[in-house]
């Protein structure tokens, strides 16, 4: 599919993850190459979020390995090259914070520890908010923004660090149509500038055109991998809520890594 001489940006190799005794990922492998837009699809509880969280080191592996930018995860230090958009659990917290303050947190990886903010940092914050169509909300408390706008704020936070790879966990879940479009536009601009994207989604919506490869996770294993056409189009249908690739959950074929 891609030249074998080029090292992948994300390389998950036979990753095994278990919460308590319950296996969530069973020897899953995933590779993302520069310039790709890879969508990880699957039903709730399929392990799709766990897969990318494991790739970022947020979930400990009980087997297998992860390499980021051709470095073992354990020794990887160039976090500024990655922009992460977590699943929104409410961008608000106990204390009010403006959209600008939240986005500025995305600049810290570039800024360097204890270094005061420079003009470039402030420009990156306003630029990132403009890219998601929220330039005029920079001074508003995130708590007063709609769910879709909060999600866009988190995307702006990831963009502010000027990353090479964006990792997004369910970026469009529960987001209104206007925000979905603003988000798709921002992502389009990012990919157009040479960025790489790894995103988890339940449904793709307006993102579908951007996706270069889809990976369907089912019951902790990869059930489908390849170009978007059929499966992604099918899963992107809003009326279709769950992924049922091959009937019974415990089908032995699903256990083997692709």
């Amino acid at each position, binding site marked *: 599919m891609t030249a074998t001489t080029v090292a992948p940006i994300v390389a998950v190799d036979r990753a095994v993850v278990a919460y308590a005794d319950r296996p969530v990922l069973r020897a899953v492998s995933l590779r993302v190459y520069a310039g790709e837009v890879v969508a990880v699809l699957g039903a709730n509880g399929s392990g799709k979020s766990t897969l990318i969280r494991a790739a*970022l*080191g*947020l979930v400990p592996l009980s087997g297998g390995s992860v390499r980021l930018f051709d470095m073992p995860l354990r020794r990887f*230090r*160039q*976090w*500024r090259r*990655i922009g*992460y958009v*977590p699943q929104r659990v409410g961008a608000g*917290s*106990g*204390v*009010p*914070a*403006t959209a*600008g*303050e*939240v986005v*500025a*947190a*995305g600049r*810290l*990886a570039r*800024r360097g*520890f*204890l270094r005061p*903010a420079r003009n470039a940092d402030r420009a990156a914050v306003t630029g990132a908010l403009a890219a998601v169509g929220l330039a005029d909300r920079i*001074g*508003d*408390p995130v708590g*007063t923004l*709609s*769910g*879709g*706008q909060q999600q866009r704020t988190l995307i702006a*936070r990831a963009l502010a*660090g000027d990353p090479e790879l964006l*990792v997004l966990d369910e970026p469009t879940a*529960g*987001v*209104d*149509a*206007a925000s979905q479009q603003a988000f798709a536009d921002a992502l389009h601009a990012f990919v157009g500038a040479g960025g790489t994207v790894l995103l988890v989604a339940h449904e793709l919506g307006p993102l579908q055109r951007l996706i270069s490869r889809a990976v369907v996770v089912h019951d902790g294993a990869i059930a489908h991998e390849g170009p978007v056409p059929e499966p992604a189009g099918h899963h992107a249908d809003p009326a279709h809520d769950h992924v049922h690739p091959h009937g019974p959950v415990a089908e032995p074929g699903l256990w083997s890594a692709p």
Partner: protein
Amino acid sequence: MSIFQYDFMVRALIAALITGFTAPTLGIYLVQRRMSLIGDGIGHVALTGVGIGLLTGNSPVLAAVVVAAAGAVAVELIRQRGRTSGDIALAILFYGGIAGGVFLVGLASDKSNANLMAYLFGSPLSASRSDLVVMGVLGVGVLAVTVLLRPWLFAICQDEEYAKVSGLPVRTLNLLIAVATAVTVTVAMRAVGLLLVSALMVVPVAAAQQLTRGFRSTMHAAMGIGVLAAALGIWISGAAGGGGTAPGATIVLVAIGLFLTATIGAAGWRILRRRTAGVLGGLGGERAAPAEIEPPDVVLDR
């Protein structure tokens, strides 16, 4: 009015001001994490430090710093594990701390009752010049952490996983917050006492966020409210008849009064503004567009 002609009143005022200025800058991170009660628990643990200090003839304040810091680090390690049993572990740590403290202070001196009350509820009126120096130095240390590191501490308190993926030294910063909490508790011990320490960390922040829109402005407003509560509290307690009221309790009550005022004022302001906006909207066009984005109904429309 003339209560500040006495040196001990001036020293009490300075002790209270240092506390009112410093405590909210740390408390804001605890409130952001929804861990407002942790300061109270660390205060309990610090009492054991006081007891150890009195018993061994060392400075109770420095012993309290060390023991409270150890307790705060233990709390942080329990939080990182995120186990459900952590709740019980915290309870045992906190009650062990206060019971150990009462036990040790009792062993340490024959006039222990008065001593114990001073540490539990504060005794700013007995603050000596050297007490103030110690408080000032510790206070500056806390401010150096809470104010200079604000962007980084904000990031880890707001979204810890994101901070991890940003490559921030999350574990180190968490331990730094834990130690700063312990130091703040000991700074505030003299002014409001270990049982009321947490109030001065949390209540000014709670009051400030009724009025502010951002994190930075909340921190600054909370510092102002903390200073105001400290000054008013000392003044009221000194000016009150019958030998004065307990300064620590008075400061805390004033802070809660400021919180209530801010809450009622902000609610009134919101109602007033909504009415004005309604009138403007009725008048026509211009405000209608932004108002359309605002209601949360949009979120549900997917």
